[in-house]
């Protein structure tokens, strides 16, 4: 027992460094997903037919193909073909981010469509352009409604980030696996890693819940 504890304690700094890498991947992927997902959602709701069609294909593709397949396809295939020399870490973040964009676009689309569209009409009636109406009236409300869905997406991406292993990025999972194969303490080490994933999820979800409460509109219920 003490022996196992010693192994874990010994490996902990190394694994925790991996946790930072994992957080980096999640942060990058969520941000990329957000930056792509918002305009995609706007395009899916308000865009002309051909824009909706193209975005539909994008969403269909990234939701339809397993992430593991996408990782191989992009890291060993498409990025190479494009002559991009990406590190395993950024490749993972980008593939997860592009996948997340597909899911996030659906989260935001749902929120936009849940809003009473009369508000956009009212903004037009005041002389605002559609762009101004969407950016200053629709999105601030839609993003508030999206926080619960976004918190889901965060917990999913966090766990998907372990796929970094297959391209050799040194995230928490890969590092834990390295230590385990050297020390044969799989059980304790993966319990440790699992606990850290669990704590990160809990903290992240709690933070998003706090944010949700903080930006709640007084008196507003849907």
């Amino acid at each position: 027992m003490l022996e196992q504890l010693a192994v874990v304690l010994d490996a902990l700094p190394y694994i925790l460094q991996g946790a930072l890498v994992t957080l980096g991947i999640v942060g990058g992927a969520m941000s990329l997903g957000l930056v792509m997902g918002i305009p995609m959602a706007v395009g899916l709701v308000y865009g002309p037919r051909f824009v909706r069609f193209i975005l539909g294909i994008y969403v269909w593709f990234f939701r339809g193909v397993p992430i593991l397949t996408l990782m191989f396809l992009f890291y060993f295939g498409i990025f190479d073909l494009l002559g991009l020399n990406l590190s395993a870490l950024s490749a993972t973040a980008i593939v997860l981010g592009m996948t997340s964009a597909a899911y996030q676009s659906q989260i935001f689309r749902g929120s936009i469509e849940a809003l009473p569209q009369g508000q956009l009409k009212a903004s037009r009636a005041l002389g605002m352009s559609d762009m101004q109406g969407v950016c200053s009236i629709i999105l601030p409300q839609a993003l508030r409604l999206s926080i619960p869905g976004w918190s889901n997406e965060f917990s999913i991406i966090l766990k998907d980030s372990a796929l970094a292993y297959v391209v050799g990025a040194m995230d928490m999972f890969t590092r834990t696996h390295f230590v385990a194969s050297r020390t044969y303490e799989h059980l304790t080490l993966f319990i440790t890693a699992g606990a850290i994933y669990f704590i990160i999820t809990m903290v992240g979800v709690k933070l998003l819940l706090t944010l949700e409460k903080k930006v709640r509109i007084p008196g507003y219920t849907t």
Partner: protein
Amino acid sequence: MATPILQMQNICKTLSGKEILRSVSLDINRGELKVLIGPSGAGKSTFLQCINYLLTPEHGQIVLEGNIVDTASKKELYSYRQQVGMIFQDFNLFDHLTALDNVAIALRKVKGMSKKEALDIAHKELDRVGLSDKGNLYPAELSGGQKQRVAIARALAMEPKVLLLDEPTSALDPELVGEVLSVIRDLAKEGLTMIMATHQMDFARALADEIVFMQQGEIIERGSPASLLKEGSGTRTADFCNKLSDMCEEID
């Protein structure tokens, strides 16, 4: 006689295959209040939305102060809409903004005012509709009548030349109708040009310069309240109003 401030000429509109407006024309002079009445489905709301180009008519044109509005130019369209305000039946306030910010946002985004300038005007406009103490409340914290008054303040802040009102009291509880009508009455007395769809016949009788009766996408009758609503005048308008008041009596 001076040119009408706003002229709608032969407006036609079809919505999902159904002809809603059949070549409707209407002129309004500065300072006039015209009241649109008619059964639901008559096209009143569609007509008002076409006037503001929230719906684009298939045919017809709109002339503001002698100039044909060219909707092909986005810039001209946006500037036209600033000059023709719109009040909706269900208020359409911006739910995430306080009453003050609801009024201020278009001043900032459209007129490019600073935050301070915009809020100063917002304070004044809320005061004008009797809501100076509600500025920091959100729409969900206001009553229906208060919401509609904020909506009116929001439209007035843009200093519109014409204000369109689409059944502004229809979504309100009966006891809240009065406070909104009294604001509109004040505006009429101040000489704001308005076109209003409503079922409030007493209001129309007292304040309208002209009543315009619409049915099945056409203007059937028009004239002063006195001539249209006179007892025994035999007009469709009088008939419709009698039906309205009969209905009220039955309910009472």
